[in-house]
């Protein structure tokens, strides 16, 4: 085994190994009775219920619904976010006045407004989509501004020396140069959006995957609840990894 393979393989093995050992340990402790089996179901039970949950609970349909909500919200933050970002970039005074507000909004607990959105949009997909939209908007705006402001002066000078008009400057130089940073903001926004979409689905007991967890919990289907939680974690992790790959693909030289 070469040193390089060893260096890559050992940490993965250690991490995975510890995880598996932990699961086995929990299984044993439950069987022996140290851990109450009515509070923590046996891992083998959880694994068994995966199939049941996938088949009986229409996982695919729920996944599609959650995905639809996240996608809609994502499209909205992309369009509205970049538009506002461009606007704030163009109008300096407006940016100076409102940029700190947007930053404050990014760190504010906007998801707590969900009861309000429930009243306005009813117990429907739109509440969920709008909550996702509000959560994911600030990073897109801020990163759009950052990307445009960060255009290297020399590139702007190239455009000036070629006598580009203002719209041409924007389309051919400013925007392409800002694109990597905008994608970072988009990725951040999408992550917040997805978190809020699934979270609000759970909270208002409507929608796809989030609602499933709520449902199974209220039915006291313990293994099912755990299985559904694992499934949602899986979806979230995969989503995170995909967006990470896309971002890295777009910024190869950083």
């Amino acid at each position, binding site marked *: 085994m070469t040193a390089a393979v060893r260096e890559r393989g*050992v940490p993965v093995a*250690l991490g995975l190994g510890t995880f598996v050992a932990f699961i086995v340990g929990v299984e044993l402790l439950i069987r022996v009775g140290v851990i109450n089996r009515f509070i923590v179901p046996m891992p083998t039970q959880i694994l068994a219920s995966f199939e049941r949950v996938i088949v009986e609970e229409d996982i695919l349909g729920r996944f599609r619904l959650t995905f639809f909500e996240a996608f809609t919200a994502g499209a909205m933050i992309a369009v509205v976010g970049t538009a506002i970002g461009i606007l704030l970039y163009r109008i300096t005074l407006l940016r100076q006045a409102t940029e700190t507000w947007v930053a404050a909004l990014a760190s504010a607990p906007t998801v707590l407004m969900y009861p*309000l959105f429930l009243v306005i949009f009813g117990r429907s997909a739109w509440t969920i989509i709008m909550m996702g939209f509000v959560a994911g908007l600030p990073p897109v705006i801020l990163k759009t501004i950052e990307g445009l402001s960060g255009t290297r002066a020399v590139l702007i000078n190239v455009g000036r020396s070629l006598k580009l008009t203002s719209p041409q400057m924007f389309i051919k130089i400013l925007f392409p140069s800002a694109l990597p940073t905008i994608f970072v903001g988009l990725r951040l926004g999408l992550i917040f959006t997805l978190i809020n979409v699934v979270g609000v689905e759970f909270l208002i007991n409507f929608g796809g995957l989030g609602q499933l967890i709520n449902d199974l919990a209220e039915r006291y289907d313990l293994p099912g609840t755990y299985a559904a939680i694992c499934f*949602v974690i899986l979806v979230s992790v995969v989503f995170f990894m995909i967006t990470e790959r896309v971002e890295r693909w777009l910024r190869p030289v950083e």
Partner: protein
Amino acid sequence: MAEAGRIRAAAPPRPAVSPVTLLRISIILVVLVAWELLARSGWLYRDVVPSLLAIGTAVWKLLSNSEFYWHLGVTAGEVGTGLAIGGTSGLVAGLLLGANRMLSKSFEPYLYYLGPTPKIIFFPVMIMWFGVGPGSKVAMGAISCFFPIALSTAAGMRQIDKVLIRVGRSFRANAWQMTSKIYLPAMRHPIINGVRLGLGVAIIGTLLAETKLSNRGIGFLVIQAYSLFDMPRMYAMLIVLFCLAIGANALVGRLGGLHTIRRT
């Protein structure tokens, strides 16, 4: 002197109020006026957009009601405890992961990829483990803030100037001395930032848990207002809540900043 080689131009007269402030005030005024018009028009069904007076009255009633402060205390206690538990364990985990490359490569990816998941989905499990009382809310706050604090501490550890560690070792500092006199002070920026982030998500996690299942706390009050369809009260609470959250964030930022004004 810098001015020696320059011709002093006359400074332009400074306006009494800066244009930025003016714009901010005008934006706020426009929003308030539009709001009031919407409220009076009756376009949306009743009370979804209450008049400013109704909201103002509700804020006043809220802040002068001692019961509100009791609930606030409950929530603050839950958030504080959750932050203490999640923060300390996150700090320790981050220190361990940051100090050892092998541990970091083995376990940090788990934290990194589990970080951006909606922690509220763990709430049913927390209820099973810790009951329907404050325990499950504290647990929600704790697991919410554990991840960002652990990750930013680990990253902070790796960014410490290596030579400072060698200085400590060359003077034969023991592990406790290394941690308290070198690692932690060298990491004060990332730690403060991690705690700010942790506070934010701990507040969110705890409050969401309170809205879902509780009979006390601010989250409970919000849901109560919803179920009673007392919209002015709900708006009032959201306003107060946001002000408190932003205030808490700014306070932590200030504490961190105060620390660094003289030092770096």
